[in-house]
């Protein structure tokens, strides 16, 4: 194919420059800071070399937050895959009201996260929450429980709330993949006697490869980045059980005022995510056939 080097770059460069400036310059500043010992923003500290990095790996807080982030990504991946596929496969069928549902299912994604927090804080409230009173009414609970009071309960509740926000959006993207699958394949498999479970496993799933690639990559990174839902509900508690790496960075910088440490954390985390992305793209990228 003919290459259009100059014109091509002319079209993409405004955006590329905007993005690179806003990512690379700050990362350079952060890297510089990570080599010093600065506490409050604006003050100066002495040069400590890679000391911050060495100390970081010995900190139990860092290890704890990394583990939490790992569980967070896995938990969200499982829940969101389940919800998103349920929604996508359901909407893919014909039923009365399908159009309205397909349009409005994404409501949880378009409202501000703060509103998501308000909704679930009210619904899950231990004193007056509707979930508690329904669970008691149907006999699943003896008395009202605090959904954010113990480490495990808080973690699971947050995973569910975050999945509630994101699954419909992911479902629509899966739906786009479903729409691109050739209908005839299903008809042919029916003739061969395949049931709908087999159809899902051998036609639907394999044909969603490129969609699942994007979702796997973007979804993982997006889950990792979640901050506001956790921060506004539990502040990382109880006893740091919901402190993921983003919360640790925020806390270190803006409540503990250890800017150099926070910068070090940011650099290490960026590096880890970049590594993950490169490995993921190199090993999973579907072959382009257009």
């Amino acid at each position, binding site marked *: 194919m003919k290459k259009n080097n100059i014109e091509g770059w002319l079209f993409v460069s405004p955006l590329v420059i905007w993005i690179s400036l806003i990512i690379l310059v700050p990362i350079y*500043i952060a890297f510089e800071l990570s080599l010093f010992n600065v506490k409050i923003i604006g003050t100066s500290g002495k040069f400590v070399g890679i000391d911050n990095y060495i100390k970081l790996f010995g900190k139990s807080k860092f290890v704890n937050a990394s583990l939490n982030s790992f569980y967070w990504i896995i938990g969200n991946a499982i829940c969101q895959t389940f919800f998103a596929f349920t929604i996508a496969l359901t909407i893919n069928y014909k039923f009365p009201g399908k159009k309205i549902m397909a349009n409005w299912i994404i409501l949880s994604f378009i409202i*501000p996260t703060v509103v998501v927090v308000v909704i679930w804080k009210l619904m899950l409230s231990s004193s*007056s929450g509707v979930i508690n009173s329904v669970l008691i009414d149907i006999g699943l609970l003896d008395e009202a429980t605090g959904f954010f009071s113990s480490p495990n309960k808080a973690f699971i509740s947050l995973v569910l709330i975050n999945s509630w926000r994101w699954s419909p959006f992911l479902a*629509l993207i899966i739906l786009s993949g479903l729409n691109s699958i050739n209908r005839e394949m299903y008809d042919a498999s029916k003739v061969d006697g395949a049931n*709908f479970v087999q159809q899902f496993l051998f036609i639907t799933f394999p044909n969603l490869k490129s969609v699942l690639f994007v979702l796997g990559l973007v979804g993982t990174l997006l889950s990792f980045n979640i901050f506001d839902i956790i921060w506004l509900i539990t502040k990382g508690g109880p006893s740091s059980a919901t402190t993921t790496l983003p919360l640790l960075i925020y806390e270190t910088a803006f409540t503990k005022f250890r800017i150099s440490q926070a910068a070090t954390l940011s650099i290490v985390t960026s590096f880890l995510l970049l590594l993950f992305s490169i490995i993921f793209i190199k090993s999973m990228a579907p072959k382009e056939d257009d």
Partner: protein
Amino acid sequence: MIKENNIKLILLSLSLLLIILIFFFPFFWIITSSFKSPEEIIATSTTIIPRSFTLEHYNKILFNSDFFIYLKNSLIVSFSSMIISIILSVSAAYGLHKLKFYGNKFVEYSLLVTYAFPGVILLVPIYLLFAKVNLLNSYFALIVVNVLFATPFAVWMLKAFFKLIPNEIEEAAYIDGASRYIVISRIIVPLAAPGIASVAIFCFIISWTEYLFASILISGDDLKTLPVGLAGIVGQYQIDWGFLLSGAVLASLPVILLFVFIGKYFVSGLTEGAVK
């Protein structure tokens, strides 16, 4: 065969019920609750049908709070971010779609990674950068960040919409002597209008809902956005639920209204083109 259809029907009804309960009921709940009396909101026994009706919470938030200041700030920031995002991403998406150039795959994948990459990792560095160049406490700081978050996915979506436009139309225009600029402004943009509309909504939503950077980069009360203003109430020790709920409903209203008018483009845009 009949048996399989029955199982399908039961499964479909079950999942429909589940979806309605999980994804729609919460909205019914906060909207009705925002009209309930304060006593009913915090009552331990709850009924699905509201027992009281009051406008006092809305009265309070509309006429006795900074709601309109926050609303104005959110609108300014979101609209500016949306317009800049659209201009930058239409241009980039066209370049990536039509013009094969050295490094285009690299740009494409980098965009995909940056879509998810920034977030909190950039929080401290960006804060430091903006402190250095005196951008803290300005609309522009938020716009810069929102564009960064919105454009990568916007490009990804736009590219898919551009692919749906038959190549022949464009080539015919070139044969008639049209320039690249004319082709883009008279052919590509109008033909991709539904797609561009849905991408625009996406950009608007991203900016409208952004909380983290808005809470850190803005400290002046007069420049705070709606999510930050609302979060201030969430964080209080004694939550005034009625006040908070009516605020939540009002803060969601603009995106929902926008969605009523152009939402179907957004959804069909996502489902028809997003990942082709």
